[in-house]
């Protein structure tokens, strides 16, 4: 049966992802157990007549329920993974209903980050569809008394062609459900020629809801009787409340209660930051009450943090020998010989995510159990932190996943959901915590500030005979262990230890840096600063050698080969190196492709215009970008055109992939033009879009062309890989147009706007 019902007159208002106008629909879970349900959170797929997988159920009316276990933040994974199931099932997409999973370990890793939804779950989705199709065919064959091998499927139907018989999936579901679920070895997957949806243009399942305002984000979740909370948090990481006014805020109309939240213990991880919460009847009253708190803070040791001195410290560290993380040949011996050397320092500041939907979560603690509705990339991490904070079992935390108004990595870190749960327990009522934009900017897990020192000894042909690169940045593990100061392999792999060049003498190092703010994953993560350093330094060397940057780049990439990571800890984004080897030929190919498509070397560039190129692999995907810029006498930068070529192996959803790369160019534009978070005495200086501007329509590339390489290689990530090469190519284009080398981001530091 369908478990969607009209619940607008009951206390439970919206739990589903889509609400239909004024009539509010909620998908029921948990409190509305049906007879026979074994779990507190059975899905419609679980309840369906034929339930052959956690991801899939088929009702006798032919409705196919597919579970989206990963979060939707704009990458279309909520649509694309179910498309793979539907394709292998031969299901009619019009009869598919997608149901968002709650956090539940039976789905495996649900952390929707690292651009790995498709790489990690493509096979599982195919197998889920294939198993159900196998069972439906068996059921039809039994009914007709014919061998199963003579039956096949067409759209939503099993057919026996020689006798011209057919039976719909709905009418076969009940008989199929009595059959054993086949083992993997019994399954035959559809040949590529029979694919209906994979590789075809497909738009989001939620498209109409998105344009009509009916889509439900975390900000839109409501429960009858819920209160709204706004929290004043310690302005310096690790700070504590000394005193506050608990009377004045209560005089604000609509304010009901003031509740302290404990500061975090030891490393922050995903714990609430602490502070004072104001609880009110509506969001605005909570915001107003907060202004009257008059808190006095004990800022603690991170008060020493100033971005300008910290930058100098990073740079100084990078100018001395650091920890060697990869070495080929003997770079030192070559440098010791003297000769022509080129060196440069590159710097990228802290960056904030600034997703359009500020952080928000709704929680209800009742009868020893917590139920949350949150725009989270990682509902199982919500379960973990809420169970720890409330001292209840993880199974007693139910986390519904709403749509996300952007995530970019911030919503993998559920400190905001933990706040809502803590407050609901203290209030004894449902509480929705709403972060302001200022909170969102000031209490982020920032992309690390990073300094890179680059040095090359150059031969007579202008090519490097030795190459040294050192990066220094406060590492993400510092949020879990305050003593962590070195880059970990998972982030050093991101465009640093896997430099794709064929170099006889290479040394890669990483230096220590202590974190004073929370550091976290942000779209493309360490690839942002690593690709910026390597790809812009390459452009410098090309110009120093008087070479065309494209030719020079191809020369350094060299002949097609597989990178040997012997002696290097290289996690390969969690994928096996034999399935996903690092093939420089594929990087070379996208570089040549983007050069050809962009008309590299063929287009005329007048005064103040120029093009730049960069190539970078990340999240298992090979990308090259060409960016064209125009810079006028006032230093105003325009981007008339961007070309990007990518090889992501098999591309399941080319439409969504193109959109991700168009978006990556815009995200990268923000980084280059204005992206910078700084701190003074441990307090973040920026607060909203006036001082942390993100790119607007008049500042972005006028035209971004995306070229997808046709490939049958295993699928790779597409959400993040476009950003790093775009940033480097953009900066290289500025050099081509102006002769000014961008080594310090953002470009406002060079007087550009």
């Amino acid at each position, binding site marked *: 049966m369908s478990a969607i019902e009209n619940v607008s007159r009951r206390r439970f208002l919206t739990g589903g992802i889509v609400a239909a106008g004024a009539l509010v629909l909620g998908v029921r879970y948990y409190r509305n157990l049906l007879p026979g349900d074994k779990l507190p959170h059975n899905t419609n797929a679980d309840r369906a007549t034929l339930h052959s997988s956690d991801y899939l159920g088929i009702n006798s009316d032919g409705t196919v329920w597919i579970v989206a276990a990963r979060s939707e933040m704009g990458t279309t994974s909520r649509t694309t993974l179910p498309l793979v199931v539907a394709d292998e099932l031969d299901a009619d997409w019009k009869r598919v209903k997608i149901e968002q999973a709650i956090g539940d370990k039976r789905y495996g890793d649900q952390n929707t980050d690292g651009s790995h939804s498709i790489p990690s779950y493509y096979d599982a989705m195919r197998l889920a569809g294939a198993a159900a199709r196998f069972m439906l065919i068996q059921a039809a064959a039994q009914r007709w008394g014919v061998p199963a091998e003579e039956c096949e499927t067409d759209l939503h139907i099993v057919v026996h062609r020689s006798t011209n018989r057919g039976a719909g999936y709905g009418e076969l579901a009940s008989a199929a459900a009595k059959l054993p679920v086949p083992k993997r070895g019994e399954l035959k997957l559809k040949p590529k020629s029979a694919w209906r949806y994979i590789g075809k243009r497909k738009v989001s399942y939620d498209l109409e809801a998105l344009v009509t305002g009916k889509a439900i984000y975390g900000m839109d979740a409501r429960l009858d009787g819920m209160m709204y909370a706004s929290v004043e948090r310690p302005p310096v990481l690790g700070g504590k409340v000394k005193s506050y006014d608990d009377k004045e805020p209560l005089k604000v109309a609509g304010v009901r209660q003031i509740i302290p939240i404990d500061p975090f213990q030891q490393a922050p991880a995903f714990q609430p930051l602490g502070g004072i919460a104001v609880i009110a009847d509506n969001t605005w009253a909570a915001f107003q009450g907060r202004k009257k708190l008059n808190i006095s803070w004990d800022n603690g040791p991170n008060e020493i943090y100033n971005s300008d001195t910290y930058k100098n410290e990073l740079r100084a560290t990078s100018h001395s020998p650091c920890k060697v993380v990869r070495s080929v040949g003997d770079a030192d011996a070559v440098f010791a010989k003297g000769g022509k050397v080129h060196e440069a320092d590159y710097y990228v500041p802290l960056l904030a995510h600034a997703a359009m939907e500020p952080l928000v979560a709704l929680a209800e603690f009742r009868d020893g159990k917590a139920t949350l509705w949150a725009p989270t990339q990682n509902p199982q991490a919500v379960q973990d932190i809420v169970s720890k904070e409330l001292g209840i079992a993880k199974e007693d935390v139910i986390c519904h996943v709403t749509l996300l108004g952007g995530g970019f990595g911030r919503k993998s870190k559920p400190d905001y959901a933990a706040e809502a749960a803590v407050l609901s327990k203290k209030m004894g009522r449902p509480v929705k915590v709403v972060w302001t934009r200022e909170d969102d900017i000031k209490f982020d897990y920032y992309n690390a500030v990073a300094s890179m020192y680059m040095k090359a000894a150059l031969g007579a042909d202008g090519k490097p005979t030795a190459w040294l690169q050192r990066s220094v940045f406060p590492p993400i593990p510092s949020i879990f262990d305050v003593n962590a100061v070195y880059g970990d392999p998972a982030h050093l792999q991101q465009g640093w230890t896997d430099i794709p060049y064929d170099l006889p003498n290479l040394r890669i190092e990483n230096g220590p840096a202590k974190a004073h703010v929370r550091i976290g994953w942000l779209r493309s993560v360490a690839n942002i600063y690593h690709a910026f350093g390597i790809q812009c330094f390459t452009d410098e060397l090309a110009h120093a050698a008087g070479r065309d940057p494209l030719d020079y780049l191809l020369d350094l990439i060299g002949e097609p080969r597989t990178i040997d990571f012997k002696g290097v800890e290289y996690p390969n984004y969690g994928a096996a190196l034999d399935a996903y080897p690092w093939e420089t030929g594929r990087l070379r190919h996208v570089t040549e492709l983007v050069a050809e498509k962009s008309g590299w070397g063929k287009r005329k560039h007048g005064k103040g215009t120029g093009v730049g190129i960069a190539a970078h692999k990340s999240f298992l995907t090979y990308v090259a970008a060409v960016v064209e810029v125009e810079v006028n006498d006032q230093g105003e930068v325009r981007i008339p055109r961007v070309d990007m070529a990518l090889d992501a192996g098999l591309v399941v959803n080319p439409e969504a992939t193109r959109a991700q790369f168009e978006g990556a160019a815009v995200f990268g534009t923000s980084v280059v033009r204005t992206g910078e978070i700084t701190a003074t005495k441990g307090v973040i200086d920026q607060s909203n879009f*006036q001082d942390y501007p993100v790119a607007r329509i008049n500042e972005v590339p006028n035209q971004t062309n995306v070229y997808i390489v046709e490939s049958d290689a295993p699928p790779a990530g597409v959400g993040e890989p476009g950003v790093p090469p775009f940033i480097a190519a953009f900066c290289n284009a500025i050099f081509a147009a102006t002769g000014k080398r961008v080594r310090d981001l953002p470009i406002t530091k060079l007087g550009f706007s």
Partner: protein
Amino acid sequence: MIQLKVNGVEQSFGGEPEMPLLWYLRDVLGLTGSKFGCGVGLCGACTVHMNGQATRSCVTVMRNAAEKEVTTVEGLDESGLHQVQKAWMKINVPQCGYCQVGQIMQAAALLDSKKKPTDHEIDEAMSGNICRCGTYQRIRAAIKAAAEEMA
């Protein structure tokens, strides 16, 4: 008591007159199509029409909404889909979608006043609406597609 019309329906509001219209729409009326993005009129996610003009509801206090006709996305088109929304679907504009209602309200107001806006006019009109996913190229294309359909 403040009187106003929201999507054609008479409403009266007896609360704090300094409360921004956005929170009245979202928290009091339950019209959650208009989004909170910045609270200071810098991102456009909260855009509604007030007497036909695109207006940032997060910085429009209830006192200033008195006697006004407010249209939110929920009331943008009686048939359910305005030409701008249809164009948004045809061009497949949204990624996360959070800002898109504000973009659509802004674009609909633009096309009310300019039947065939140039690229420059589109940029001028839309530069107050931020899209962090970066759908701007498609927003421009969709506005042009809607203009064609509405011509």
